[in-house]
C-alpha cells in the first residue's frame, strides 16, 4: 500500500500530463489519474524495479485512457459530433492546435509520443507499457513527430525564430 502510494505520488505530475495529452482535457486527466491511483493501490504486488513500476503504472493509465476515449467516441457518435479536424497550420491558439494535432494521431502513436514528451519515459519503459519493442517505439515516436511537424508548421516556424533547447522541461 505504502509502496503503491509512493509510486503514484512520484509519477503523478507526469501521469496527469500524459493523460491530459491523451484525452485532451486537464480536469478529465486528473479524474482519470484518480482511477489509476485506485487501481494501483488495489494491486497486490508491484513490479520489482522502478523502471518496471513506471512502465506498469503507465500501462494501467493507458488502458484507462483508452476506455475513456472509447466511451467518448460512442458518446460523440451518438451525438453526431464530427471527428477531429486536421489543423490548418495557422491560428492564434497554439495549445488548441497541439490538442487537435494530437487528436489526429493514431492512438498508439499518440501514446508513445506522450509517454516520451509528457512523462519522460525511456523507450524501454514505453515499450513495456505498450507491449512493443524499443525499436518499434523509436520508429513510432519518430513517425508521430513527422506527422506533428506537418500539422504544426506555423508554430514550429515561429518557435524557430526564438532560442531553442533540446532537453525535456
Amino acid at each position, binding site marked *: 500500500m505504502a509502496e503503491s502510494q509512493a509510486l503514484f505520488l512520484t509519477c503523478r505530475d507526469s501521469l496527469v500530463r500524459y493523460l491530459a495529452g491523451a484525452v485532451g482535457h486537464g480536469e478529465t486527466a486528473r479524474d482519470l489519474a484518480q482511477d489509476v491511483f485506485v487501481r494501483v493501490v488495489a494491486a497486490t504486488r508491484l513490479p520489482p524495479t522502478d523502471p518496471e513500476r513506471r512502465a506498469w503504472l503507465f500501462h494501467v493509465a493507458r488502458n484507462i485512457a483508452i476506455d475513456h476515449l472509447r466511451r467518448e467516441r460512442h458518446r460523440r457518435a451518438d451525438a453526431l459530433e464530427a471527428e477531429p479536424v486536421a489543423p490548418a497550420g495557422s491560428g492564434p491558439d497554439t495549445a488548441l492546435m497541439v490538442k487537435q494535432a494530437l487528436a489526429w494521431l493514431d492512438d498508439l502513436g499518440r501514446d508513445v509520443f506522450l509517454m516520451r514528451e509528457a512523462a519522460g519515459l525511456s523507450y524501454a519503459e514505453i515499450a513495456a507499457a505498450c507491449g512493443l519493442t524499443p525499436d518499434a517505439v523509436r520508429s513510432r515516436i519518430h513517425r508521430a513527430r513527422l506527422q506533428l511537424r506537418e500539422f504544426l508548421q506555423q508554430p*514550429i516556424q515561429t518557435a524557430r525564430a*526564438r532560442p531553442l533547447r533540446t532537453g525535456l522541461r
Partner: protein
Amino acid sequence: MHDVISAFLDNEPFDAEEFSAALATPDGRQLLVDLVALRGVVQPALTAAATQPAASRRTHWLGVAAAVVMLAGGFALGQWAARGNSSSPETAVSATSAPEPTANYRFEPGVNWRETSSTGGH
C-alpha cells in the same frame, strides 16, 4: 527514416555513423531543428493542458454570476416600478382605499352566541 534523430533528441542510444549520415543532408539538418522546435511548441501546450482549470467549475461560477445579475436586475426593476407607482396619485389612492365588502354578517348576543359563567373566569 531519420528516426536516429529522434533517438538523439530523446537521449537514447544511437549509431554515430547513422546520425552523421542523417545530418549530412540539408533535409536531415532541417528535420533536426524542426523537431527541436516542435518540442518547444508541444511542451508548453502539454503543461497548459494538464493545468487547465475545470470546465465544471467555470460553468458553476458562470451560473452563480448569472443568478446574481438576475437577482440584482430584478431588485432594481422592482425599485424602479415602486418609484413609478408611488409618483402616481391615482394609484396611491387606490392602493390605500379598502375594497367594497361582498357580504355583511351580523352576530347578536343571545341569538348567535350566549354568555356562560365559568369558575375563575369573568
